[in-house]
Structures are given as C-alpha cells and as structure tokens.
C-alpha cells in the first residue's frame, strides 16, 4: 500500500522469532526439543507445586490441574466424569483436548509469576509430567517434538469437544448457523408459572458486604442495609 508509505516497517527474522511463540494443534510453531517425565517432576516441584500442589491437586490459587480422568478416558478420548452432574469441579486435564494447548500455555504464561522463563526442554518435561500425573503418560516417557503427535492420541478428552454451534462469527466450523435456544415472543397471558424457586439466603447477601454502601445516596431506590440494621 503506497498510500501509507513510511508507516510500519518489515519485521526482522529475529523479531518474528522472539514473538511468534504460538503452537497450534497441528504443531505449527512447536520448537524442537524434549523433556522427560522425570525432569518434569523436578521442574514441577521447583516451580509449579507451590501454587498447584505436589500432585496438581491444589485449588488454593487456581482450580486443580489434575484429577477426574481415568485410563478408560485415555482409550475413548472422552472424559466420563464430565457427563456426571454430581462430579465436583472440572480439572484442566478433564477439559483440555489438545496437548498443544497445554504446551503453548505453559510456555507463554507459566510459572504465573515468571512467565516465559522456562527453557523449551523444560516445557516438554513439565507438560509430560502433568500428563503422567493424570496417568496419560508413563513415568519413563520422554516427550519431544517428534512424538508429541502420539501423545495427542492419548489426550483423555480429545474427542470431548465440538464446534457445532451458532456462536462463531465467521463461516468456519460449519458457519454461524441457527441459534440453539429460542426465546418466546408471547406478550399476553403467557404460560409462565411465576413461582420463585431460587433465592439468596439472607447471609449470602451479606457475603457481598453492606449493599447500602454500594448504591448512590440519592435516587428513587437505595441500597439495602445489612440484615438487622434495617430501619422501620
């Protein structure tokens, strides 16, 4: 575009290399390297366990990363516990469908307080260790750019995802399509049963503090003072 001559310049190869760190499910962008489960355990215990727990089970700073998957899931590629409504919480390994997602995210964002500090080999290693914790990879596994496609075939939830929906604003994934949920346009004597089935217990309202102090001091309505401080 001659129109904007002098605006912007070509990036140098070193610049692109420095920033183009993303890794796709087809492994475009994946740098060569490798790391063992054993080395991964070392990295994990040094740099990850303090937040995520020794077994990736902690929810003190974030949801547990590991748990809820089974050997059967590794076979089927569907995490069975996701079908249960009584299963408490969802771990990362229950949800993640692509090993590239884990690899890419750990490389770019973890450790949380020192993102991008891991050498490439350690990213392989700690990813392998996480998958070992979830019984996806054996303890003697050495993950590398050459065998990662095999690892993908063992991801417990690899078949548990879909893009069939109307919420992608492009023509891919089968196009925008028809929304799955339909509201009603009834205006008069509609068939709704206005019965209150869910309501906050008073103490849960107070869990959000004094609502009187969360509303403007003037206006047609005010914030509700805490229970027990109500003025008649």
């Amino acid at each position: 575009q001659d129109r904007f001559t002098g605006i912007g310049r070509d990036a140098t190869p070193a610049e692109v290399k420095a920033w183009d760190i993303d890794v796709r499910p087809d492994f475009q962008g994946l740098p060569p390297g490798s790391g063992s489960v054993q080395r991964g355990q070392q990295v994990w215990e040094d740099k990850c366990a303090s937040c995520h727990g020794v077994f990736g089970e902690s929810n003190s700073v974030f949801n547990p990363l590991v748990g809820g998957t089974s050997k059967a899931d590794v076979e089927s590629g569907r995490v069975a516990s996701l079908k249960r409504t009584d299963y408490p919480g969802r771990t990362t390994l229950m949800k993640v469908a692509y090993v590239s997602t884990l690899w890419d995210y750990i490389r770019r964002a973890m450790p949380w307080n020192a993102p991008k500090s891991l050498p490439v080999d350690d990213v392989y290693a700690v990813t392998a260790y996480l998958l070992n914790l979830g019984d996806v990879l054996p303890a003697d596994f050495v993950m590398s750019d050459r065998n990662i496609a095999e690892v993908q075939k063992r991801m417990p939830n690899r078949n548990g995802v879909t893009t069939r929906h109307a919420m992608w604003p492009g023509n891919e994934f089968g196009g925008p399509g028809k929304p799955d949920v339909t509201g009603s346009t009834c205006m008069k004597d509609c068939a709704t049963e206005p019965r209150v089935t869910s309501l906050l217990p008073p103490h849960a309202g107070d869990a959000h503090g004094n609502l009187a102090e969360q509303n403007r001091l003037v206006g047609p309505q005010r914030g509700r003072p805490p229970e027990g401080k109500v003025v008649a």
Partner: protein
Amino acid sequence: AAGAAAVAHAAPAPAEGDPDILQAPEHTTGLGQPVVTDGYGKPSKYEANVQRRQSPGLTQTRQASVSFAPLQSLFGIVTPSGLHFERHHQGWWDIDPSKHRLMVNGLVKAAKVFTMDELMRLPSVSRFHFIECGANTGMEWGNVAVPTCQYTHGMLSCSEFTGVPLITLLQMAGADLKKGRFVLAEGADGSSMTRTIPMELVESGQVLVAYGQNGEMLRPENGYPLRLVVPGVQGVSWVKYLRRIEVGDQPWATKDETVHYVDLMPDGTHRQYTSIQECKSVITTPSGGQVLMDQGFYSINGLAWSGRGKVTQVDVSTDGGRNWRAARLQGPVMDKCLTRFSLDWTWDGKPALLQSRARDESGYVQPSYRQLRGVRGTRSIYHNNAIQTWLVEESGEVKNVQLG
C-alpha cells in the same frame, strides 16, 4: 409498609417550609473553588459508593480475577472509564507507549512492525460498542448466587472506541485473505492472552486495533496503549496490551478458547470457540439489593445488547413473565452497542416480579432460564443470557430470584 426496610424517610418539612430552602446554604452565600483544582477531575465525594467491586470468594487470586461495574448506579449507555469492569489473567500493567510495538506476521507477504506513533497516524474510526465477559452472569447458571446486578451482570461495559481497522494493517502487510481465514491476537502481558478471531469479522472492518476509549487513551486496566476491539464477541477476545497479530489457515486452540470460555453441554461435550455474546438484557433500576422508598410511579430502566447487531425491541414484565409491554428504546440504537430502555410503572405496594426480554435484528429472542437450561443444562459457566428476574417485596426490598 412501603419502604419499611429502607433508611428512615426524611422528616416532613415544617409548615412554613423546608429548611434546605429557607436557610441559604454556604454554597449560595459564599465563594467556591477555583478552576483547575484538578487538571483531571474526579466525581463528587457524595458518589463514593459508586465503585467497581470484586465478588468475594469468586476467584482465588486478585491478579487472575474480575471486578464488576456498578450497573445499578449508571445512566445512559457510556460506562465511565474509571468504572469499566476489569478482567485480568496475570495482572494489569501501565505500559510505556513509546516502547510498545505491534507485529503482524503469519500468512502475509512481509511481517510488519508498527510503533504507536505510526498506528495513531493511520486513518481511524470511532465506534460505540459494548464489551461483555463471556463469564458474565456465569455464577447464576444453577441458581441464584449473588445479590445485586453489579455482580449478576457487571462484567459489562460500553465505550466509544477509537482505532485503526485491523484490515488496514493486514492489507499493508499483504495478508493472504484467501488461505488466512483465522487471525491470532496476542497480548504483551504475562498471560500473553491469545484468541482466534474469524477473518470474516476482520474483513467487515469491524475489528479495530484501538488506542482510544471514551475520548482519551485506553485505561491501563483495559489494555493501554493498545487493545483489539471485536464487536459482539466476548471480552476475552478483545486482547489487551496487543502486541501481535498472526494470520493463519487454522484456529489456534488456545487455553482461553478450548479449555476456558467453552460451554459444557448436558452430554458432557464442550463447545469450543463460542464467541458471540447473544442478545441479553437486564433491568438495572430497580434491581437486586435495592429498596424502593415509596409506592407510586417508577421508571423501570435497563440495558439491552446483542452480539449479532442492533437491539430491535425490549419487553418488560412486572408479573414474572405472564404479561409483557414493549419498553421505550433510547436512541441512537447502535450496532453491537448497549441500548438503554425504560418503561413507566406504578408500584402498588404488592409483590412484583420484574423481567426484561430483548430481541435483536437477527430475529433472536432472549430466552428464559427454562428455555436456556432446556438446551444447555446448568453447567456451562459461560454465555448465560437468560432473562433476569427481580422480586419486589411488599417492604420495597428487591431480591434476585429465579423462577421455575
């Protein structure tokens, strides 16, 4: 009795008149403050209650967390930038704009680097759009969880954004628009947030590389000095601290489009790349946690929006959805923008169930909880756009409820 739960009513004025009229206050009989006490001003001290807030216990850390905009106290459609909701994954930064760079790479003739000086030199547009987090109202999928509309719906804001259409930059880099149907946007903060954007939306000219928000630069909490604006799409795609755009032939399956911001269906599958914020609305006054001071006339006010275009109609019910009336829409009604609605209502002091239901130009109608859960169950976390119900009790107290 009406207003029983409220703070005490003002004492009736003495017969000769209200002392606030009869006795001239200091501000009527004195000399006030000079100009430019503040080169950048701030709200009245009496407005201190109007703040963005965290929901206690919602997140385990404060850097991967959210703060909610006080919708119950806002007017019109513009969100003051100081009250814009926050969502950070690895904390916010105040980045030196003279050192910030934007790279365009991937399926392009030549990868490019732009400085802020250069980006701000290109032709820009300014457009009003809402931004809503995909997790807004997420706490309420299963049952009522929070007391006020700040917490139920406050991951929502609306601003006038100024920036360069991303398509201009892709053209300058010579992007392959035939093969490159996907775009990756990447941030410069610790999380280096990445999201896949459809080229379709970029080609339409709607996606902006934005630096301006409500007339000034973006706020640090909202991505200063550069963020992507992806109208109609959930906030996580509006990548903050934007440092890189890559053109590709496949989606990236990043953590925040395939592990989070995914919708768990009753059959245990996760929907990925669910991006559009579907048509939704909420009554902001009266709303949960408030108390009506008196019986009589009220103006029911609220906000409606749609990620698919313009809002065409908003219906309001005061009897829990049995009967509806079309609300007034405040113009201009803009594309993928908040629309303020209002309806006259006279409160007779009896319990009432207030609801609003929005429609958009695609023909979509906002669903009830029953309709939404009928398809998606109760475990989706994201994209809860069900009709909200507020119960007005005889005391004047308004409560967050769900009907069944």
